[in-house]
């Protein structure tokens, strides 16, 4: 870990301004991802801005009938919130399928969205990795790629975004609310929040430098049956090989976002029209253009089967 300076800020605007003032600064929320990466010198911020006390830890109803989730709300509190459990069950289930109780107590909403990939080569600074060290190459593509992405990837990087929560947020049409260093605020639909890697896999989101996430906004609830099915080699405490977040309606329509396959939660709205036709037709459309490696081609069948399981469960 490299030496860094530390400050604690009290308001979101202060946070953004502090970041603008100090090049190479990073926001610290729960620290469950950032600190690990700093210990391994994968992240080497010169300055840490602790946003833990900026007061963004509330969950409030929005005038539109949705929910505004403060960026610093912990994963535990979010999963446990009454309205979330009642109206956004998918979100609660996805959160509880991730990490462990201890981690969820520390992990925050914004930190979860911005957690970095779990590609094992990204974690080993001796290995080539375009995401960690742009231009160094990608050791994973011809190496161990069983867990990695099959769609939305590029020749430069096939990493996945590992978050369970983000899969649910994507199916729920969430939006990310931010404040920039100059004090202006904006909202970014989650669909436009994550960038695909292309030739620049180190650029992961459309956030600007020093832009602080202040909240995640959920639109009014859409009802339906909420299912989150996470597939993994062991029963708990593992990242998804594939996960399926679904909201299914009585009439056979629905929304499905898939995790574990792409650099972002993977959702193709046009494919959802095929849901009444069943898992096969839907998955074919969802994963059209997929470019799996030999080691992770099984994910094509796994997505289809898991979607079938979810559709089957939705019927009961």
């Amino acid at each position, binding site marked *: *870990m*490299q*030496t860094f300076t530390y400050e604690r800020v009290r308001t979101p605007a202060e946070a953004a301004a502090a970041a603008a003032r100090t090049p190479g600064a990073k926001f610290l929320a729960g620290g469950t991802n950032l600190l690990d990466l700093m*210990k*391994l*010198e994968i992240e080497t911020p010169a300055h840490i801005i602790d946003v833990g006390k900026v007061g963004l830890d509330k969950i409030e109803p929005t005038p539109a009938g949705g929910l505004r989730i403060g960026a610093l709300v912990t994963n535990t509190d979010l999963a446990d919130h009454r309205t979330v459990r009642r109206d956004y069950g998918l979100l609660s289930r996805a959160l509880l399928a991730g990490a462990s109780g201890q981690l969820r107590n520390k992990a925050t909403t914004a930190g979860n969205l911005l957690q970095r990939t*779990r590609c*094992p*080569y990204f*974690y*080993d600074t*001796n*290995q080539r990795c375009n995401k960690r060290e742009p231009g160094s190459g990608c*050791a994973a593509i*011809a*190496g*161990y790629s*069983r867990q990695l992405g099959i769609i939305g990837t590029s020749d430069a990087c096939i990493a996945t975004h590992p978050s369970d929560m983000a899969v649910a947020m994507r199916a729920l049409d969430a939006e990310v609310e931010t404040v920039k260093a100059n004090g202006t605020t904006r909202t970014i639909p989650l669909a436009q929040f994550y960038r695909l890697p292309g030739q620049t896999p180190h650029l992961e989101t459309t956030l600007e430098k020093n832009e602080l996430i202040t909240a995640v906004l959920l639109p009014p609830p859409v009802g339906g049956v909420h299912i989150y*099915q996470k*597939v*993994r*080699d*062991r*029963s*708990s*405490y*593992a*990242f998804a*090989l*594939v996960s399926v977040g679904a909201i299914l309606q009585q009439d056979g329509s629905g929304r499905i976002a898939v995790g574990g396959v792409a650099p972002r939660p993977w959702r193709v709205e046009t494919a959802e029209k095929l849901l009444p036709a069943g898992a096969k037709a839907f998955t074919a459309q969802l994963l059209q253009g997929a470019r799996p490696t030999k080691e992770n081609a*099984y994910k094509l*069948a*796994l997505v289809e*089967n*898991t979607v*079938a*399981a979810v559709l*089957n469960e939705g019927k009961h």
Partner: protein
Amino acid sequence: MKFETPAGVNPIDQQKVIGQPASRLEGPLKTTGTATYAYEYNRAAPKHAYGYVVGAAIAKGQIRRIDRTKAKAAPGVLAIVTAADVGQLPPGQFYVDRLLAGPAVDHYHQAVAVVVAKTFEQARAAAALLKVTYIATKGAFDLAAAKDAAPLPKPGPYSGPSQTNVGDFKGAFAAAPVKLDATYTTPDQSHAMMEPHATMAHWEGDKLTCWCSLQQLNWGARDLGTILGIPKENIRLISAYIGGGFGGKGTALSDIVLASLAARAAGRPVKVALPRPLIFNNTTHRPATIQRIRLGATADGTITAIGHESWSGNIPGGGTESTTASTKLLYAGANRFTELRLAVLNLAEGNAMRAPGEATGMMALEIAMDELAEKLQMDPVAFRIKNDTQVDPEHPGRPFSSRKLVECLQTGADRFGWSKRVAKPGTVQEGQWLIGVGVAAAIRGAPVMTSAARVRLNRDGIVTVETDMTDIGTGSYTIIGQTAAEMLGVGLDKVVVKLGDSTFPQSPGSGGQWGAASATSGVYAACLKLREAVAKALGLNPEEAQFANGQVLAGNRHYALGEAAKAAELVAEDAMTYGTLARQYAQDTFGAHFVEVGVNRYTHEIRVRRMLAVCHAGRILNPKTARSQVIGAMTMGVGAALMEHLVVDKQVGFFVNHDLAGYEVPVHADIPHQEVVLLEGLDPTMSPMKAKGIGELGLVGVAAAIANAVYNATGVRVRDYPITLDKLLGKVSLI
């Protein structure tokens, strides 16, 4: 005391304390966080510094240059030690890896340097500033590719001959009416023990004390002495508590060697713990295997030919994974052939991991038995029972000292409800789950070795046992205490057990399932001597003296035990040594594993639903700690069957998933109800304790039982471990 003829009745047979389910003596210390582990001896070695190990960034080649300018100037740095400073270190005996690279690099993350600083954070930060450049050369990392050219190695000290031949295997196999020829693979595995390798090293003049985490202190002192070039008499090792070892902490590794060198260089005590991501490639692991098994039988299920060939790889000088060990002993069959071949691979060293050879060999053999039973249309339990043998099949003049494999299988089948099994695979379904059951036999050698102890008696009647035996989480403290209590007729509350100090009388340590049987026998010998001393002190005839309820009785005289030590503490020391019984008898432990799994019909995730182990291992010294060993081993078997896999990157040449996020071991949610049945049965050929080890037996066969259950559930035979869902996808035909 020398044990040469089978044991008669002795004080242990009373089983007042021995054989009782006593809770661990050190349990409260561990559950309250007050048991002191190697890295925690802060008070014993004040003003200590911290060492951080730098691992090689390449798999094979040379260190070109180490630029230490920046690291040296970093805050708090006290010393930097590399091979350029201390020269090339020779390897030890049990592990053969060179523990400090330079100029050659033998494998990825082999230690290149240790950086010492005043705080851990300073050491870690400075270590990252060390600029090491390399000249990489090509290495061999692919066992399958190296297999065909792999030679027959010389047998190592802990593995049998590399090739055995009995009868005419080729002819019998060719002639067998029913046969199987299949190849199985097992991956590299990591011990993944909770406590990382850690040492605090402290020099006083030329005397070195290390608080460390080693299973075998005698090997540790021997190998550390060799590596550092100092007499082993100048080394004191202390390992009072060990957070798991599984064969991965047998003797000196980089933590203890580099802590010692660093402490010398820094002129103060230094502690070193290997960071988790370094452990997988820096230390040892269970090597991958490729195993070809050929079985031939007559139509009635009598095995006529057994052939087992196996390939594994290692660094130059390393040993084989002796997978054929169990095959030599488990089933009858007149014509037999085994062969172990060893390729050179430039990965980290492969060495012992819990039931080395047996665990891996039985992962293959016991699937093969299931496959042949199906071809024979026989029940797999009945097929195994039919081929039981009461003599060593390679040496029919040598009987098993005690072998209840058949009872294990029968008892297990009854308890498990095996008769309800549906033989046709893929038939039983419950909601989303395809259900299957599987069985496998278990066998594991039961070695005993010379072991010594010292026993003290004070005037309060407190008995103190001292031996350099270790407790790696197994229950050594407790069974040793129970042994002394039984021998001296006192309760466990009157016994103090001191372990894990190399200045104590020498034991063989914890390994190879020999610890419990050997160490308690050494304590038995010392206690016999103490009984004599007590009788003498009280003026009693040693032959007549009885020890019970804290009293010594002879005729109508009786004394409190402490009376004997009224004038001065009584001290007795002895070792148990052994004659030739182990050559006359095949001494092994046996078991049977029964497992039920569910396979999700959509995702093909495999979840174990029920496990049962029936074990036969001589006298069970403590059913609670024995059960604990077995359920831990069964859990490890679930890992081996379903997830544990060090993935080799064959281009770079290293284990890629080198942390506990990437290397998955079972979590609580993976482990269902585990039932353990311990069959009665003393083995008087072992020692006066009539006991055998059990810690490794519980693992052997588990993975194959799971594999067989997956087959029964799905009809898909996976011969490559771990059995993960991707190996089933597209192959399960759903009803």
